[in-house]
Structure formats: structure tokens, C-alpha cells
């Protein structure tokens, strides 16, 4: 049995080492080695039995397994991509720290912060104790802020500042929620973990739990990008380097979502709380869907478009969990599928940005001719993210919609469909403009080239999403069903 603490502490140590390293090559090797070690340990941990479930601090249950796999896979993919990305964006080389003096050395800081980011996300996912989880989620904000400011431009500075302030304030409110949740406990409840509280759900004080849930939802909801609090998200995701955007969108949002799920798990154990929590989740979910649908329609910037699409998918996740029953399992599948697809789209957008050196949609034309492989994957990604049939997103969205119809929540179902359609139309126009449009100045991008490193991750992730749509392997199905049961839902 691998000790889960390893995958939290190991990246921190290697991250600190890579701050002092002089050689660009070694730093990259460390990054990839850490990624694969993390993936290996994650598989070991996830395949082991969940004997740690009684633990006070960190443990492994089905929810942890699901989200830890996502984080680890995405990090591995992004780190492979980063090898090529760092070559294309040469910054200063050399160690970031010489003695007490800190140099603003981008590449060393980038590699180190990626690893700290990984450690923080692993902590956020693995922690069972609510206080520890708060520390993990706040640490993800801190580790990722320097990554967003990687390009050192005014725009990235603005994005990073907004991100840091808004998320910190949001998470400070979540800390209030943690304190209130502690008030909900009575002397019967021994452990300050979701499992411990579910066990003694009857002894919890419902009023305090209600207040705590609201603070959790607003606090972690800010980090997750739910609608009224999503302002930072398009900026941060569009200004960050592409491998970082992929991590932010695919892994980080899920970590914050897990923060909400943990308290939802407690709420689901108390009948009086379940409807209250579910209604709030559905409300915020539909609001997110609406906001992204509106802002995606005339979006001039393709990375921002992807960012708004993340808001949309977080809305789908919240709505799915709010609807309950089999929709929760649908939402879990959707979380996996969205992470894989959105990460590959962000990585592909990095290829496009490299070739065209513009984020404006109107500047990108004839993608299929200029970058054939990227163009084809970009189109496949479009089909996947909008939930076209062979992909896993179709199954999950369909499962959520089916539950909405079965429970006769007509308003939710209609709005859900309407906003999905709106997003589909918005994305269709954008993607068709980019890929199909005639390329007028064909000679300009002759030097545009695609390296294998930049293509392998998106291709693999997209084919995963395709395979999951056709055939759900047993261990993934078990994990999804287990997670849904923990949250009071039904199997897929």
C-alpha cells in the first residue's frame, strides 16, 4: 500500500530542487519524471482498497479516486506538452534562486510552480478533514498565480491579480463556512471529515449546516467558476500559458467542485438538507449555463471562448449533482470527460496561438490547411465538448437530462437544453470560421509546424473521451457508481 502522503510531499521537494537547477534540460526531465511518478503512485493508490477511509487527515474513497486520476492524468499530459511549449517560449534560463536573491526567472519558476500546483491539488483531493482541504484549495490558488503571470505582460498581470484577489476572498468565505460547519457538530461527532459527519448525521445541527453550506457554495463556487462569481475565470484561463490553462480548467475547477461535493455529501445524509442544497446547486448551475451561453455567442477570442465553455460545464456538473439520482453519476462521468476534452482543446489552442500569434478568432482562418493535424483534432474537440453522440459527454449530458425529465423538473430540463443549444450555436460559428475559412495569406504561416509532443496529449485525451463514450471499463464504472452512492445518488 503506497502512502498517499508521498504524492503530496514528493512534488514539493522536487519543485524546490528545480528552483535551484541551472540546466533547462534537467528541469524538464524532472517535470516529466515527477508527472509519471505521480501517475504511477496514483494508480497504485487507486487500485488499492479504501482502508484509509477511517483516517482523520487524508484518505482514499471513490470520490478521491475519481478526481485524483483526473488530476494526475492531466498533469502528465500537460507536462509532456510543456516540454515543447518551453522551447517555443524561451525565457531566461538558469536557477530562480541564487542565495537569498530571487530572480524573476520565468522558466525555473514555471517548472517549480507546476509541481507545487500538483502537490496542492493532490492535497485538496486527498484530504478528508475539512480544514486540511481548505488549506489545499487555498494553496492551489497560490501555486497557480505565478503560472498565470508567466508571460509578464500587462494583460497577464491583470488576470493574475484578479484571480488572486477574487479567489482568495472567495476562499476566505469558505473558511467561514468551515468554522460554521464545526459549529454544526455536537459531541457525538468525533471526526471533522465528511465520512465522520455522515456517520452521525442525525446529531448535526441543521441550522448551522445550512449556513455552512451557503458559505461553502459561494466560497468554493468562486474557485469553481459558478456564474455570479465567475469573473476571474475567462481572464485567467485565457492569459495563462496553454498547458497551465489546461490544468486550471481540467483539474483545478474539479478540485474546487470536490470541496462543494464534500459538504454536499454531509447534506445528502440529512433529508431536510438535501432539497435545500440541491435547489441551490441547480440555481447556480443554470445561472452558469446562461452566463456562458450569452458570452460565448459573440466571443472574439478563442481562448476566452474555451474559458466560458468551462463555466458552462461547471454549470452542467452543478445541475447534475443538484438533480440527484442517476444524474449524480452522470455528473461524475461528465467531470472526467470534460477534463480530458477541455485540456486537449486548451493545449491545441496553444498550437494555434503559436502558429498565428493571435488569440482573435478573425485572425485564424484555414486551420485545416495551415496546421492539418491540429485542425482535425480541434474539430474533433469541438464535437466532443458540445456533446456529440460518440463521445462520453453525450452519455453524461443525456443521463442528466433524462433524470430531469423523469423527476418532472420541466423548467430545469428546458433551460438546460436551451442553454446547451445556445452554446452549441456559438461554438459552431466560431469553430467553423477558424477551421474552414479560406486562408488568404497562405505564405505567411509557412513556418508553422506541429511537433509530435504538442499533438500526442490532445490526441490521446480525445481518444480516451471517445472510448469512454462507447465502452465504460469496469473500474471506471465502479468508481463513478461508488462516488454517486457516496453523494446519495444512484448508479449510472
Amino acid at each position, binding site marked *: 500500500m503506497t502512502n498517499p502522503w508521498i504524492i503530496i510531499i514528493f512534488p514539493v521537494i522536487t519543485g524546490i530542487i528545480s528552483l535551484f537547477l541551472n540546466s533547462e534540460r534537467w528541469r524538464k526531465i524532472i517535470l516529466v519524471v515527477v508527472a509519471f511518478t505521480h501517475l504511477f503512485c496514483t494508480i497504485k493508490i487507486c487500485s488499492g482498497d479504501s482502508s484509509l477511509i477511517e483516517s482523520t487527515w487524508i484518505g482514499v474513497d471513490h470520490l478521491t479516486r475519481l478526481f485524483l486520476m483526473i488530476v494526475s492524468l492531466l498533469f502528465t499530459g500537460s507536462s509532456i506538452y510543456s516540454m515543447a511549449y518551453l522551447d517555443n517560449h524561451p525565457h531566461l534560463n538558469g536557477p530562480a534562486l541564487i542565495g537569498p536573491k530571487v530572480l524573476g526567472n520565468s522558466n525555473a519558476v514555471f517548472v517549480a510552480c507546476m509541481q507545487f500546483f500538483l502537490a496542492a491539488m493532490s492535497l485538496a483531493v486527498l484530504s478528508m478533514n475539512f480544514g486540511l482541504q481548505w488549506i489545499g484549495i487555498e494553496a492551489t490558488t497560490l501555486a497557480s498565480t505565478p503560472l498565470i503571470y508567466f508571460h509578464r505582460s500587462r494583460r497577464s*498581470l491583470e488576470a493574475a491579480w484578479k484571480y488572486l484577489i477574487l479567489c482568495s476572498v472567495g476562499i476566505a468565505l469558505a473558511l467561514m463556512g468551515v468554522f460554521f460547519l464545526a459549529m454544526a457538530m455536537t459531541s457525538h461527532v468525533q471526526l471533522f471529515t465528511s465520512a465522520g459527519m455522515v456517520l452521525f448525521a442525525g446529531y448535526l445541527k441543521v441550522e448551522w449546516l445550512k449556513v455552512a453550506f451557503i458559505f461553502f457554495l459561494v466560497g468554493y463556487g468562486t474557485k469553481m467558476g459558478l456564474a455570479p462569481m465567475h469573473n476571474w475565470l475567462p481572464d485567467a484561463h485565457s492569459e495563462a500559458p496553454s498547458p497551465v490553462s489546461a490544468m486550471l480548467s481540467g483539474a483545478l475547477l474539479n478540485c474546487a467542485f470536490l470541496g462543494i461535493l464534500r459538504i454536499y455529501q454531509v447534506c445528502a445524509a440529512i433529508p431536510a438538507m438535501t432539497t435545500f442544497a440541491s435547489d441551490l446547486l441547480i440555481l447556480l448551475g443554470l445561472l452558469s449555463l446562461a452566463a456562458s451561453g450569452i458570452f460565448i455567442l459573440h466571443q472574439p477570442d478563442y481562448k476566452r471562448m474555451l474559458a466560458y465553455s468551462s463555466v458552462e460545464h461547471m454549470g452542467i456538473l452543478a445541475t447534475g449533482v443538484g438533480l440527484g439520482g442517476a444524474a449524480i453519476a452522470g455528473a461524475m462521468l461528465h467531470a472526467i470527460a470534460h477534463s480530458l476534452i477541455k485540456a486537449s482543446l486548451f493545449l491545441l489552442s496553444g498550437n494555434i496561438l503559436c502558429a498565428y500569434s493571435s488569440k482573435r478568432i478573425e485572425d485564424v482562418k484555414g486551420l485545416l490547411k495551415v496546421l492539418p493535424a491540429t485542425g482535425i483534432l480541434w474539430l474533433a474537440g469541438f464535437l466532443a465538448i458540445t456533446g456529440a453522440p460518440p463521445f462520453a459527454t453525450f452519455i453524461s449530458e443525456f443521463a442528466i437530462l433524462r433524470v430531469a425529465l423523469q423527476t418532472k423538473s420541466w423548467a430545469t430540463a428546458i433551460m438546460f437544453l436551451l442553454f446547451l443549444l445556445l452554446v452549441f450555436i456559438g461554438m459552431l460559428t466560431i469553430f467553423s470560421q477558424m477551421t474552414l475559412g479560406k486562408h488568404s495569406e497562405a505564405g505567411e504561416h509557412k513556418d508553422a509546424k506541429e511537433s509530435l509532443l504538442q499533438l500526442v496529449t490532445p490526441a490521446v485525451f480525445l481518444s480516451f473521451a471517445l472510448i469512454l463514450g462507447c465502452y465504460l471499463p469496469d473500474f471506471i464504472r465502479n468508481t463513478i457508481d461508488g462516488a454517486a452512492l457516496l453523494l446519495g445518488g444512484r448508479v449510472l
Partner: protein
Amino acid sequence: MNTIAALLTLSSLLLLGSSRLRMTIKMVAFQGFLLGLLPLTGKVEHLSMAIVLSVCSITLKGILLPWMLARAMDKSGTKREIEPFISFGATMLMGIALLVVSGWIVAKLQNTQQLASPVCLTTGFFLVFSGLLLLITRRKAITQTIGFLVLENGVFATGLSLGSEFSVFVELGILLDVFVGIFLMGIMLFHIDKEFDHIDADRFNELSDLDLAHFDSEDISE
């Protein structure tokens, strides 16, 4: 405990009404110091843990962070907050209103539950509110940082007065997170100053989807 709570309330009222940045930084340092004393005044179960926590809190929030903010202020050469969206007098009045609101919330809460220290809880809520108020109404990035610090102090005070006992490791972890957060903000203050020639966060408008007229806010420099 109640004396400290009263002092905390007073200091944040002064924060809301003051235009001089040096004054606000001093007030925040004072608050950090008071907060450090707070864990020692209640019923103390593990004295050594409480002392560790209080020493860490005073060093970080009372000394290190204010020192760093003061340095950021000196480097950027800004001495006072430019006219905020809502005038200083008005924010102070709003602060008093918020104090009443926090008192009301705590009174409501007391109906359902016996609270360990209602006065301190009122202060906690009030600090949270005034931190948010500072964040919303002020333009300088440095004042927003101070606002966040006040908010964080409020959350801390709320937690202490609710008597929700965490393990000391969690408390230290929270403290560390907050410290690194403010530290990052401090570093970014330098960069913002260098890039934009000012630290007015409200003139951040290069990233916006709502084409709210990019009105040229009148250049107010020191």
C-alpha cells in the same frame, strides 16, 4: 477578550475612514497584534499550542506583512488613497451601519445557540464586512490587499469566538496560506506599479467582455 474585541472594532472603523496609507498599514499591524493575543484570552486548553499559534500570528500578521506592505508603499511612492468611489465619511457611516448589522446577526444567532463570546463574534462579522467594504470601494491595489487582510482577520476572529477547536496544525496551515497569499500580492504590487505606472486596480480594463465605455478616468497622481 471583550477589550480586545472592542479595540479591533475601533481599529477597523479608523481603517474605513482614513485616507493615509501609512495610517491604514499601522492599523492593520495593530489588528494583527491584537488577533495574536486573542487565542490566549479565552479558555485555553493546550497552553503551549496557544502560545505557538499566538507567536506565529503576531510575527506574521503584526510585523512581517505590515512591514512588507509599507515597503511596497514606499517603493511605489503613493502616500494616500485617491478619492474612493464612496467618500471616506460615507464609508465610515456604512461601517457603523454594518456594525449594527453584525450585532443583529449575532443577536439572532444567540436565540438558537449559547455562544461563547457574543461580543467577539460581532467583531468577527464586522471585520469581515469592513474587509469586503474596503475591497469594493477602494481603488488602489494596496488598499485592496489591506482589505483582504482585514477580511482574513475577521474570519480568524469569528473562528476563535465560535470556539470551534481545530488542531493546531490546521490553524498553522491556514496562517501559512494567508501569509503566502499576501506575500504574493505584495510582489505583484511591485509589478503592477512598474507596468501600469500606478496601482489603481480600477483601471484594469484591458480584459473585459462588457464593452463598458473605456472612459478615461481623470489622471490623479500624487
